[in-house]
């Protein structure tokens, strides 16, 4: 979706606010929210792409106003109901319904390190042939999907060169909506800064993006 999260190339956001000796978490609740998101991901009711899309669905004014971990908290509150871990009544009362099942085993201390270490859902799959070759010119498709996508607006319709084939990964546009993993190759594609931003950009500079087969077309 053409959401506010797709920030590349936007202007007027102001200077970068730098904090010296920044702590990992600024308040206790931030750490708890981070860990709750990790722990509930282990219940496998949703996937990483669906998780990202929930954050993208925040109304733009809220997305911009909220702190990073506030976004994580608010979307997790919605997500536990959306995926059936909680009922609305439980969220309202703050108490588990009598006899509510504990069908899914909790992430425990013993398994938590595995979940830190498990990494992200993607894989190498030699059975999926690449559609493009290193060195080939490609164009980012001019598409505007209404669901989740990892194809930033600022590249659409622009031409670049395949710099590297990273192998096969799950396709986020379908996986986020539980419509299948649609595994395909991801490439590092080099776009010159002038192709993206015009003549005022430095002639030497470039931006590299990682792009799935379905985001690209032959020039």
């Amino acid at each position, binding site marked *: 979706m053409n959401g506010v*999260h*797709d*920030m*590349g*190339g936007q*202007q007027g*956001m*102001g200077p*970068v*606010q730098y*904090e010296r000796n*920044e702590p*990992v978490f600024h*308040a206790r*609740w931030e*750490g708890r*929210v*981070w*860990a709750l998101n*990790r*722990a*509930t991901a282990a219940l496998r009711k949703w996937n990483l792409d669906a998780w*990202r899309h929930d954050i993208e*669905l*925040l*109304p733009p004014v*809220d997305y911009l*106003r909220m702190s990073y971990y*506030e976004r994580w908290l608010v979307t997790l*509150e*919605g997500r536990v*109901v*959306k995926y059936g871990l*909680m009922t*609305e009544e*439980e*969220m*309202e009362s703050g*108490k*588990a319904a009598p006899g509510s099942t*504990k069908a899914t085993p*909790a992430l*425990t*201390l013993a398994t*938590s390190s595995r979940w*830190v*270490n*498990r*990494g992200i859902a*993607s894989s190498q799959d030699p059975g999926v042939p690449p559609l493009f070759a290193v060195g080939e010119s490609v164009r980012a498709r001019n598409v505007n999907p209404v669901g989740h996508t990892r194809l*930033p607006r*600022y590249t659409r319709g622009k031409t670049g060169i395949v710099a590297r084939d990273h192998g096969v*990964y799950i396709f986020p546009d379908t996986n986020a909506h539980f419509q299948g993993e649609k595994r395909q190759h*991801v490439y*590092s594609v080099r776009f010159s800064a002038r192709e993206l931003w015009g003549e005022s950009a430095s002639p030497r*500079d470039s*931006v*590299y*993006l*990682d792009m799935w087969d379905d985001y690209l077309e032959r020039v």
Partner: protein
Amino acid sequence: MADSEGSSVERRGFLKGLAVGAATPAAMHAQDHDHQDVPSDLTLRTKALESLLVEKGLVDPAALDALIDTMENKVGPRNGARVVARAWVDPAYKKRLLENAPAAIAELGYTSGQGEHMVVVENGPKVHNLIVCTLCSCYPWPVLGLPPVWYKSAPYRSRAVIDPRGILREFGTEVAEDVEVRVWDSTAELRYIVLPERPAGTEDMTEEDLAALVTRDAMVGVARVAPPSGAAA
């Protein structure tokens, strides 16, 4: 003024609004513009959610403690600094690092999440690399830990791709016109780390002392590694 009632919203009503799904925060926050209340609200809401998840047997608080301890104490830029220092002193290691970063980084014992598909990009006299995630906050956790707020902020995410030299200037990093700036937008599951240039005047330093020079900012690419104080420039 119109928001003066925001702080009187009861927690119950607050939570009820949340349970309906992704569209509700807007309605909720329309009543919640009193920023004075934000920290305590977030603390309360986090506690409420955690206690429910624990009561239902879905989350173990000890597991949360362990996860937080890992990010606060076990991973962070010191890990990445050790990787960089090793690459500076050991050309064979550097070669492995540039060819297969996950394996080379795992040699030093760093294998946690968000790092299975790391890529190391090397700075040189004619190339300067800069890492960003314009769409969210992708970052190489095993070697750098969790990202700082500025990395996840709108100013950095929006401008790193369209005005990287302006961003670099804000960080005090001037890049000459004849140097190529390469920006890496982390749009997939690859996670990038910059191998900065080894500063002059460090020829006699040990690997450990070199690692102490390497900063998080240098590994994101917004800064260079400064020579040790007292070294001949």
